[in-house]
């Protein structure tokens, strides 16, 4: 059974407001395979050479790859650079 969308998602859809603009949401911009800008990052959960985990909204974003760095912070954005191989969402275990 598909997961029911939350109120804000439904509200935004009704009013044609981008989901990213609503509170508690996040956005990702992937530039090639080398740079990922994560907007609405709440916390850095883990920081490693091959995996960086970020809390976005109520979930965790796992960025996997090689030589990963968080190269910039500011205005709720985190820029991850390196050789990005995969992005995945999962449970925030922390």
């Amino acid at each position, binding site marked *: 059974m598909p997961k029911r969308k939350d109120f804000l998602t439904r509200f935004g859809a009704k009013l044609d407001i981008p989901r990213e603009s609503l509170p508690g949401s996040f956005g990702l911009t992937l530039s090639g395979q080398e740079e990922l800008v994560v907007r609405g990052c709440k916390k850095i959960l883990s*920081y490693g050479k091959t995996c960086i985990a970020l809390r976005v909204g109520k979930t965790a974003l796992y960025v996997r790859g090689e030589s990963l760095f968080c190269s910039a912070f500011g205005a709720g954005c985190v820029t991850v650079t390196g050789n990005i191989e995969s992005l995945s969402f999962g449970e925030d275990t922390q």
Partner: protein
Amino acid sequence: MNPYFFLLGYTVVRVGASSATDFFELCRVLEITPKKLKRVAKTEDFTCCFTSFSAAKVLAFSASRGLDVSPLKRGGIPSLWRRFIHRPGLVIGTVLALMLLCLGRLFVWEVALEGCQAVGEEEILAELGELGLKRGAFLPHLDGDDIALSLRQSDVRIGYATVNLVGTVAFVQIEEALPVPDTAPTAPANLVAKKDGVVLLPMIFEGERRVEIGERVRAGQLLASGIIDGKDGGFRVTRASGQVWARTEETITVSIPFVYEEKHYTGKIYSEVEVDFFGFSGKVFKTTGNVNANCDIKVKKYNFFAGARVLPVGFSSSLYHVYEYKSTKRTAAEALALAREVLAARLVDEGEGRKLLATKVETVLDGTGVTLCCTATFEEDIGLISEFFMEAGGK
């Protein structure tokens, strides 16, 4: 180095691998982006760079949270300032340099001299120095026209002089005076003998001859008179002149002792440095100028240049080669050979302008050394013009 970091000051920070997550979370919260982020291959630690202000903030928060974060290196202008503020010499030097930059245009940096041919440049520069125009002179107190006029008046060899003050350089142009042709002296004079001798050839151009060939004359004796008797009982006064060639004798004595003092270098060399600043020189070290031993001094001057222009700032280094005198002995043969050598040189010097006819050498050897007594016979002109003064009325 990023100029922005250099201006604001920077701190390189090491972050332990175990604290990486919390450290970057802290950076995210503080919205401070670490620059030049690098991972240390062996330890998995990180190094990154912050401005001094951001680093202070990050380090303070890291310390309060117990993170393994430590500063590695600090740099930039604030860091340099903190280092130099503890060295008053550097601060004073910087202030003096700034003062020199501001006040330097009020002083003469160089005196450029043109047109010197027969007159020595050093001489003119010394004269200008006495008139107040020298390196380091205060420009507002200088009047170029006044100095040029004083220079013309003080030195008759200078026909024309101008002083143009352009910036901090004084351009001095010299036009040397034309030489005045010599006028022949007209005062009445006698021709007298300047030394004893036997007259060989009297050639009297003017005056009345008073010596004969083969006559022995004494120094001061009249050779040709400037007063000529007239046939009518009166006399005529003239300036006697001529050449009176005579055979003269001279004794030259050369003594060479067996024991003498010879210069020996000890091998000790002292060096000193003096700073030259607008003609003023000063010691650089406390020991400068304190060498009291006998020494040969070699001085080298180094000037700073701005393009082709010599700046009035420089330094001179002096090397003192210390020596001492040691008593040394020579053999009689060595002393005799040296005495002959010295005598030959003396004869060459003495024979200048006259002809050496014969020599008679007597050698005296005693316990102290060798003495050569040489009687040299020369052929020379012994005539000497001796002026005399005639009062009106013939006295």
